[in-house]
C-alpha cells in the first residue's frame, strides 16, 4: 500500500486535452510490471511470469479498448459538467448581482428592451416589404417582377404596368422564362341586393399564377388556362382562407356556391391555403381569372377596343420565373429584345407613338418584392430611415448599458485584479462579464419582443396599413432577428468592461486601489458618453426636421375645407342606364342630399382631389400650344360648388344655377392657370375653348384660389370649372358639405341616399380627409417616431451623463477635498465639475451636428418645405442638449461643492 502526501500531482484533466490511451497504457504497464516482479520474486523465469500475468489478466486487448472507451466517456462527461457548472456559476453570480441592484437591472432592461424592441418593430415592417419572399413561392431566387425603365423628359422612370398584348408578346418572344404571370387587383362590391358588403380587394391572376407556388388548395381546385381565356374567361372564384372562415365558417360545401362580385356571378371552385397572399402584401378576398376580372371591370371602349388588344392600355403587373440555369443577365437581355420587338409592333399599330430611340427602353428584372424594386413608396423610404433610427437607438442603448456595466466593473476593479492575481484566467473573467451582459440583453430582448408586438401594430398601421401583419412571436425570422439583436447588444454592451479586464494592469490596480486607476479608466466612459450625446443630437435633429415638415404639411392651404366634405360615388353595376338617366339620378341624389338635415350644401363633380382627375384639351386664343404647358384639370360642377368646397373665388363671381345649357358659356379658372395663360393681365373676360379649337369661346367670369389635388408638395394647381349643364362629360358623383365632420357624416349620408339607387346599383361615400390622409402619413409617422426615439435617446444620454459625472465626483473625492481644504469656493467647485460636463457635451454636440449635416443630403428629399440644415432646428437641439448636460451635472457638482474635506480625505 502506498500513500499520497509526497506525491506530485499531474493535473492532466485540467489541461485542454487528455491523453486517454496513454493513461490506460501507463496504468496497465504498471500492473504488468508489478505482477511480473512479484512472480519473479517467487522464483519464476521472466518468460513464465509474463505468461502467468497475462493469464490472470484475461483478454488484454479487449480490456484495453473497453477501458479507453469508458475513460473517453468519462472525460467528455467531466468536460461538459465543468463547462456547465462554470456557466451556471456565472449565471448565478450574474443573477445575484442583478438582484442586488434592482434599479440598475430594471434600467438596463428597459434601455435594451427599447433598443431591441425598436429594431424588432422596424424589422417586422421592413422584412416583408424588402426581404421576405412571398409565402409558398416555389423558386423565389428565380422569380422577378418585370420593370421597364424609360426616358421621359430627360429622366428615367420605371414602368411596372403593361398591356395584355405586351404580356402576350413577352411570352411569345422570350425563351429564358418558364412562365410569365400577370396580376391585377381591384376593389369590387361583394354580394348582391341588401347583402351588398362594402368593396373588397379581388385579385385577377393569370392561370399560370398557381404554378408559381408550391401550395395545393386548402379545398377544391384552382382554375386552369382554359378558364382564363380572352375575351371574358370563366366566372370561377378561388376564395382566400380567411374569407372562407369569416363568411362560410370553413364549411366544405362552399364549393359550387355562387357569389356576386362586381357585376358578375361567380362559382366558388376552391379555397387558397391560409397564408397565400400571392405576390402582393395585401390580402384579397379571392382570386378570379385575369380575363374575367377585366371583363367584369373594364368597359368596352368601343370600336372593338378591348382590354386585350391595342397597346395603349397598361394595367397588368407582370412577374416571370426564369428557367433553371438561366442567369439573370441572360434573361434580361432576352427580355430586352422582346420589349423592343413589342414596341415595334406597337409602332406599326399606332404610328403616332414616338420612336423607340427616344424612349431608350430598358428591360429590368426587379426583385419579387415590389417595394424592393426601383419604384419604392414613401412609406418604404421612411421605413428604411426608421430602421436607421432604430439602429441608432440600439447603439445609444448599448453605449449607455456598456457605460453602466463599466462603472460596475470599475467598482469591482480591485476584486477583479485580486482574482486575476489568484490565477483566475482572463478568459473566465471575460466569460463572467459576458454572461452578465448576455443575461441583461436576453431580458431586454424579451421585453423588446413584447414592445415590438404591441408597438409594431401601431407603426405598421401608420406605415403600411394594407399589408398583412406577421405574428411576432410565432415567426421564425422575427425570433431569429431578436436573437441576433440580443447577441449583438450583449457583445456591444460587454465590450467596454471586457476591454478593461483585458488591459487591466494587475500591480497598479492592487497598489493604487480604486482611485487613480478608476479615474484614468473612465476615459472610456467619457468616450461612450460623448458617442451617446452625439447620436442623440442626430436623432433630435431628425425629430425636429420631421416635426417641422409635418407642421408645414398640415399648414399647407388645400384650397378647400376637406374636413366637412364627403364624396358620394355611384356604382352602377348591372343597372343599365343611359347617360341622361344617370344625370337625372345624380340630380335626384343632389336634391335629396340638400334636403337632409345637417347638410350645408352639395354639388356635382367630375374630379376628386387625390382620387381622380378629368382633363380635356384646351385652346386659348393668343396662347400657343396650351396643352404642352401643363395638365389642366376639368371640373364640371353644378351651382353651389364653391360654397360646398369652401374654395374662395378671388376675382369675378362663382358659378351658379343660372349658368345653364343655353345661357352664356362661362368658365372659372384657378389663380395659377390665370397667371400661366395671361401673365400680368386680368383674366376676366378672356376666352377659353375646351376640347376643340373650333368650338365657341367660354368667357372667364371668375378666378378661384388654387387647390391641392395630386400632391401636397408641388401641385401646379392648374384647374378650371365649368357648369356641368354646359359641359356634360359624364356622370360621376357629388360632393356634400355637412355641418358635422365628414368622417362622422359619411355613413349617414350613404344610408340616407342609397334608397334612390335603382336595382343592384349602390353608393359609396368617402370623406375627403380620408383621401388626403395617406399623403400625410409618412410625415406623421416620421415625426412621431423620430420624436419618440429622439426623446428616448435624450433621456438615456442624460441619465448616462448624470451617472458618469456623479461617478467621477466620487472618484475624485480626495482631490476635490484637497481643493476645498485649500479654500476653493463653492462657486469655483461648481464651475470645475459643471465645466467638465459641458466640455463633454460641447464635443458631443459638435460631433452630432456634423453627423446631422452629413446625413442632410439623404434626408432632404423626405422633408416637406424644410431645409435639412435648418439653423433654428440645429441650434435649438444644440442648446437643448447643453441645457440637459447642465441639469444632469448640477446635482453631482453641488455635492462636490459641499464636500466635507475631512471626511473626503479620510475616506480613502
Amino acid at each position: 500500500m502506498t500513500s499520497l502526501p509526497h506525491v506530485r500531482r499531474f493535473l492532466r484533466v485540467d489541461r485542454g486535452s487528455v491523453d486517454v490511451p496513454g493513461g490506460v497504457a501507463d496504468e496497465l504497464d504498471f500492473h504488468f510490471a508489478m505482477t511480473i516482479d512479484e512472480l519473479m520474486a517467487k522464483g519464476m523465469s521472466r518468460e513464465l511470469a509474463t505468461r502467468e500475468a497475462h493469464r490472470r489478466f484475461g483478454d488484454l486487448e479487449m480490456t484495453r479498448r473497453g477501458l479507453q472507451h469508458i475513460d473517453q466517456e468519462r472525460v467528455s462527461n467531466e468536460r461538459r459538467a465543468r463547462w456547465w457548472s462554470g456557466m451556471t456559476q456565472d449565471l448565478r453570480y450574474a443573477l445575484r448581482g442583478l438582484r442586488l441592484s434592482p434599479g440598475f437591472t430594471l434600467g438596463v432592461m428597459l434601455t435594451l428592451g427599447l433598443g431591441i424592441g425598436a429594431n424588432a418593430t422596424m424589422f417586422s415592417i421592413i422584412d416583408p416589404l424588402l426581404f421576405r419572399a412571398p409565402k409558398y413561392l416555389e423558386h423565389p431566387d428565380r422569380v422577378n417582377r418585370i420593370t421597364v425603365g424609360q426616358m421621359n423628359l430627360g429622366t428615367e422612370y420605371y414602368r411596372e404596368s403593361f398591356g395584355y398584348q405586351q404580356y402576350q408578346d413577352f411570352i411569345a418572344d422570350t425563351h429564358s422564362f418558364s412562365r410569365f404571370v400577370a396580376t391585377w387587383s381591384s376593389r369590387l362590391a361583394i354580394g348582391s341586393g341588401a347583402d351588398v358588403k362594402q368593396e373588397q380587394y379581388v385579385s385577377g391572376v393569370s392561370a399560370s399564377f398557381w404554378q408559381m407556388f408550391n401550395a395545393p388548395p386548402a379545398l377544391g381546385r384552382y382554375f386552369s388556362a382554359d378558364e382564363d381565356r380572352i375575351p371574358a374567361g370563366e366566372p370561377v372564384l378561388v376564395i382566400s382562407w380567411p374569407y372562407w372562415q369569416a363568411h362560410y365558417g370553413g364549411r366544405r360545401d362552399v364549393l359550387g356556391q355562387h357569389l356576386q362580385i362586381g357585376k358578375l356571378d361567380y362559382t366558388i371552385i376552391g379555397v387558397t391555403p391560409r397564408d397565400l397572399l400571392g405576390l402582393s402584401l395585401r390580402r384579397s378576398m379571392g382570386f378570379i381569372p385575369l380575363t374575367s376580372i377585366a371583363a367584369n371591370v373594364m368597359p368596352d371602349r368601343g370600336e372593338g377596343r378591348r382590354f386585350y388588344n391595342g397597346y395603349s392600355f397598361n394595367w397588368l403587373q407582370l412577374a416571370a420565373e426564369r428557367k433553371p440555369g438561366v442567369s439573370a443577365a441572360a434573361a434580361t437581355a432576352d427580355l430586352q429584345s422582346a420589349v423592343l420587338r413589342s414596341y415595334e409592333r406597337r409602332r406599326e399599330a399606332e404610328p403616332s407613338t414616338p420612336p423607340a430611340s427616344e424612349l431608350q427602353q430598358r428591360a429590368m428584372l426587379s426583385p419579387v418584392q415590389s417595394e424592393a424594386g426601383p419604384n419604392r413608396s414613401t412609406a418604404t423610404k421612411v421605413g428604411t430611415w426608421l430602421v436607421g433610427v432604430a439602429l441608432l437607438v440600439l447603439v445609444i442603448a448599448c453605449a449607455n448599458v456598456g457605460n453602466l456595466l463599466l462603472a460596475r466593473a470599475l467598482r469591482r476593479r480591485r476584486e477583479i485584479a485580486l482574482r486575476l492575481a489568484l490565477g483566475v484566467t482572463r478568459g473566465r473573467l471575460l466569460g463572467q462579464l459576458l454572461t452578465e451582459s448576455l443575461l441583461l440583453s436576453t431580458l431586454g430582448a424579451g421585453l423588446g419582443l413584447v414592445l415590438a408586438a404591441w408597438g409594431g401594430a401601431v407603426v405598421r398601421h401608420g406605415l403600411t396599413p394594407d399589408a398583412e401583419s406577421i405574428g411576432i412571436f410565432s415567426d421564425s425570422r422575427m425570433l431569429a432577428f431578436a436573437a441576433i439583436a440580443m447577441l449583438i447588444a450583449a457583445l456591444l454592451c460587454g465590450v467596454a468592461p471586457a476591454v478593461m479586464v483585458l488591459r487591466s494592469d494587475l500591480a497598479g490596480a492592487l497598489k493604487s486601489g480604486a482611485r487613480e486607476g478608476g479615474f484614468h479608466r473612465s476615459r472610456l466612459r467619457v468616450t461612450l458618453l460623448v458617442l451617446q450625446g452625439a447620436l442623440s443630437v442626430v436623432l433630435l435633429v431628425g425629430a425636429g426636421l420631421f416635426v417641422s415638415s409635418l407642421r408645414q404639411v398640415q399648414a399647407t392651404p388645400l384650397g378647400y375645407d376637406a374636413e366637412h366634405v364627403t364624396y358620394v360615388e355611384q356604382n352602377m353595376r348591372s343597372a343599365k342606364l343611359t347617360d341622361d338617366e344617370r344625370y337625372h339620378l345624380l340630380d335626384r341624389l343632389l336634391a335629396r342630399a340638400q334636403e337632409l338635415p345637417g347638410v350645408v350644401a352639395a354639388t356635382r363633380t367630375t374630379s376628386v382631389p387625390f382620387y381622380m382627375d378629368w382633363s380635356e384639351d384646351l385652346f386659348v386664343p393668343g396662347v400657343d400650344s396650351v396643352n404642352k404647358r401643363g395638365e389642366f384639370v376639368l371640373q364640371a360642377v353644378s351651382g353651389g360648388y364653391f360654397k360646398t368646397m369652401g374654395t374662395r373665388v378671388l376675382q369675378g363671381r362663382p358659378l351658379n344655377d343660372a349658368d345653364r345649357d343655353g345661357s352664356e358659356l362661362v368658365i372659372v379658372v384657378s389663380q395659377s392657370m390665370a397667371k400661366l395663360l395671361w401673365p400680368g393681365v386680368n383674366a376676366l373676360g378672356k376666352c377659353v375653348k375646351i376640347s376643340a379649337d373650333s368650338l365657341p369661346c367660354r368667357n372667364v367670369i371668375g378666378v378661384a384660389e388654387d387647390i391641392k389635388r395630386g400632391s401636397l408638395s408641388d401641385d401646379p394647381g392648374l384647374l378650371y370649372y365649368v357648369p356641368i349643364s354646359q359641359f356634360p362629360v359624364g356622370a360621376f358623383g357629388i360632393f356634400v358639405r355637412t355641418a358635422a365632420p365628414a368622417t362622422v357624416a359619411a355613413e349617414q349620408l350613404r344610408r340616407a341616399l342609397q334608397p334612390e339607387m335603382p336595382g343592384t346599383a349602390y353608393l359609396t361615400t368617402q370623406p375627403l380627409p380620408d383621401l388626403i390622409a395617406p399623403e400625410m402619413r409618412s410625415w406623421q409617422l416620421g415625426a412621431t417616431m423620430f420624436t419618440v426615439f429622439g426623446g428616448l435617446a435624450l433621456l438615456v444620454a442624460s441619465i448616462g451623463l448624470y451617472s458618469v459625472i456623479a461617478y467621477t465626483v466620487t472618484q475624485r473625492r480626495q482631490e476635490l477635498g484637497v481643493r476645498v481644504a485649500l479654500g476653493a469656493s463653492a462657486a469655483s467647485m461648481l464651475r470645475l465639475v459643471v465645466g467638465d460636463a459641458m466640455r463633454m457635451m460641447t464635443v458631443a454636440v459638435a460631433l452630432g451636428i456634423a453627423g446631422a449635416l452629413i446625413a442632410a443630403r439623404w434626408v432632404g428629399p423626405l422633408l416637406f418645405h424644410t431645409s435639412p440644415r435648418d439653423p433654428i432646428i440645429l441650434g435649438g437641439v444644440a442648446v437643448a442638449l447643453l441645457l440637459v448636460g447642465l441639469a444632469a451635472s448640477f446635482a453631482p457638482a453641488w455635492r462636490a461643492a459641499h464636500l466635507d474635506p475631512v471626511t473626503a480625505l479620510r475616506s480613502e
Partner: protein
Amino acid sequence: MAELDLLQGTLDLIILKALIWGPSHGYAVARWVAETTGDDLQVEEGALYTALHRMEKRGWIAAEWGLSDNNRKAKYYQLTPVGRKQLHDKTELWNRYAHAVSAILRTA
C-alpha cells in the same frame, strides 16, 4: 470446493471495500482481492480494471496519478463520498440478500 462465479454487482462491492483503507492502485486492489478470497473467488484482473474505470466514471471513486513505493508512475484510486455511501448501501443489501438466501436454504 468449486470455483464460484461472481454474482452480479459483487465485484463492485469488493473493490469498494478494498479501497476503504485509503488510496490504492489497481495492482494492489487485485492483490488484495486474491489474498482475501484465497482461491474461492476467481477474479479476472481485466474485469477488475474495467470495474475500476466504470466506477470512476460514475463518480464512486476518484483517480490521481502518483508514484508507487518503488518509484513507478501509478494510478491511485480513492473512495469518494458517493462511493462510501455506495459501499454502505450495497453491503447492507448484500447482507440482507445473503441472510434471506441462507434462511431459505436452512428451512429446506
